[in-house]
């Protein structure tokens, strides 16, 4: 029987778990609000730059960074999946079962959010930012 993790390890593990489950969703939400807000409002002002940066570069960053965060969440979800598929002996069955279900949900949703972010990124390659 393995030794039980201490409170700090539990806290870190718990945060990692929630990052796996919600990371992609939050990254996508931030991505969407950023790209929409920046695009619509900058173009409404008749500009195609924000300060010194071209609008396209800013939107590009708002695509790439959330995509990377989502990949991270996907990896964390994969970790939870692995750790719950062969639990060590003596661990309570219910948390493991619940963790495993959450891992399935997390892997799928991170993949899904990554797909959405990437599809939005493809549009950035095709369309000029302020074309109406």
């Amino acid at each position, binding site marked *: 029987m393995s030794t039980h993790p201490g409170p700090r390890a539990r806290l870190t593990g718990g945060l990692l778990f929630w990052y796996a489950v919600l990371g992609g*969703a939050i990254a*996508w*939400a931030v991505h*969407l609000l950023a*790209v*929409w807000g920046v*695009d*619509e409002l900058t*173009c409404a002002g008749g500009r195609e730059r924000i300060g010194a940066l071209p609008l396209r570069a800013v*939107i590009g960053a708002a695509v790439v960074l959330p995509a990377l965060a989502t990949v991270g969440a996907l990896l964390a979800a994969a970790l939870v999946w692995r750790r719950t598929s062969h639990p060590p002996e003596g661990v*309570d069955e*219910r*948390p493991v*079962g*619940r963790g*495993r*279900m*959450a891992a*399935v*949900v997390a892997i*799928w*949703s991170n993949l*899904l959010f990554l*797909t*959405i972010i990437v*599809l*939005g990124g493809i*549009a*950035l390659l*095709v*369309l*000029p*930012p*302020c*074309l*109406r």
Partner: protein
Amino acid sequence: MSTTAAAPAPGASREDLAALEERWGERPSLRSWFGTVDHKRIGRRYLVTAGFFFILAGLSALAMRTQLARPESRLLSPQEYNQLFTMHGTAMIFLFATPMLFGFGNFLVPLMIGSRDMAFPKLNALGYWVFLFAGLFMWASLPFGAAPNGGWFAYVPLTERTNTPGLHMDVYSLGLLFLGIATTAGSINFIVTALKLRAPGMSLNRVPLFVWAIVATAFMVIFALPALNLDNAMLFLDRRFGTHFFDPGAAGNVLLWQHLFWIFGHPDVYIIVMPALGIVSAVLPAFTRRGVVGYPLIVFAIVAISIISFGVWVHHMFATGLPRLSYSFFSAASTIITIPSGIQIFAWLATMALGRVVLKVPMLFLIGFVVTFVLGGFTGTMFALTAFDQQVTDSYFVVAHFHYVLIGGAVFPMLAGIYYWLPKITGRMYHEGLGRWAFWLVFAGMHVTFFPMHLYGLFGMPRRVYTYRSEPGWDGWNLVSTAGSYLLAIGLLLVLIGVLHAIRRGRPAPPDPWGADSLEWSTDSPPKPYNFPVLPRVHSLHPTWDEASRESMGAGATRDRILADGRRTLLTSELDGSRERVVEMPEASLQPLVLALAMLVFFTAMLVAWYPVAAVAAVAVAATIAVWLWPPRRPERELGVQP
């Protein structure tokens, strides 16, 4: 399956049952009728009241369809028609669909998770009264010719005072703000109930899919409704007090309304459909004789849809001329949201294909749901593509689309749910033959009404027109739609007759007439006021199909799950459902009714601009809440006070 619940469960003694009855039972009296906090009574009231508003909104629709049967009909004036279509949409969305599903949730969630009531029973009662009063508040404007007339979406500047004088849109904004209180309170209640009041052993991976759906819905309400409330507050301020939020002449912007409205509005589509999809997952096992395929995938679908639904709102604004790149991000999300729905559909199909389908009336409605909802889903995906959306949005094509989604995706499952849970709710079985007739009429009526709308939408007929000319050649199809709407109405009337027939003449229902898998079927039909003599201990996803869970309420019952010495239920942990402690539940009270009445006075006074009365009502609201929450005096020792 479980047949033991009718007799005293072996685990709970006669004295226990008598004590529980004493603590939870409500003697019939006027005071108990107005003061009840029993989630089952409140749930039933939600169902009946929402059904009543459904009839009103449905009759509005029939009047509209009658007007549109022929070109240039003069049955309704444009002013009347515009009020009717606004009230039809507003009432169907806010006063029928959501409250109906909240009714199911109220009745079922505590039973499904093995609890004795909701987390906040008095708040639950408040929610019902507010819903009732807000609904009456809005409908009462119709006889005065002052009903909202700017569409349920109420776009500014049409709804500003200069373009729509009179009380019309004040009724709308205040009515929805008032109703929002009920919806928010109900949602918080659902979330907390599902987090803390689940039976011991019900870890997240054993929560019934219906409860998942209700909780996801409640979260959507929590995050979506504020946008609508803010929008309506700003509209009211603009109209009544001359602010300029939406006035482009004074630094305001009309698109702000649309953004805020659809940030609420699109999640709201799923707020309506999601619990209905939960009903599908709840009903299916009983009529396929097996559990739903891919439980974790369906949980994923529920979670993913409820999150993505917040990031697709601009697809309602694809014709407003925003930058095309902005559209694409929303187009991407709107396209991909199809995938979790696809997973759900194929999981249900796989369940049917592997199980053995029992073709009772609820199952017929589920099959009708699959056919209709899938068709609505296709057109939904089409709307995700901006170029196509710009062609058909605001035409009858979109009317066809969302009626396929909302009738197919929400009303059919609701009807399945009504037939399915009628034995549990009323203790009576429905008449199978009557139910089958109702199904076929509703199914045929729905498709005859709405299928042609795809066509005449593509043929260029815009929506929200009180009449049309015959040259464009839309008349024949409109006549078909109108005929279909009467067919649909007859079918729905048969549903109503079937319910009344069951209540008056139906044969008594056993605790579990279907051999279903969730906990509500392990107790009496209708359940006792305390729901379960012994709170169950859950060992699997299908507790009534597994020996250990069933035994936990009978031979395996322990004292700590009977809790007969008080009005009590159990708190468990959020994720794993581990037992935490016993809590005392509140008694019946008139405070919720008083509070709701004070709010009604407040909103009515605001509507007719009696601001001093409104101020008094606001103080009354605060005072009632203060009294409601005032802590009882306890001995110092019990409190643990240091000198």
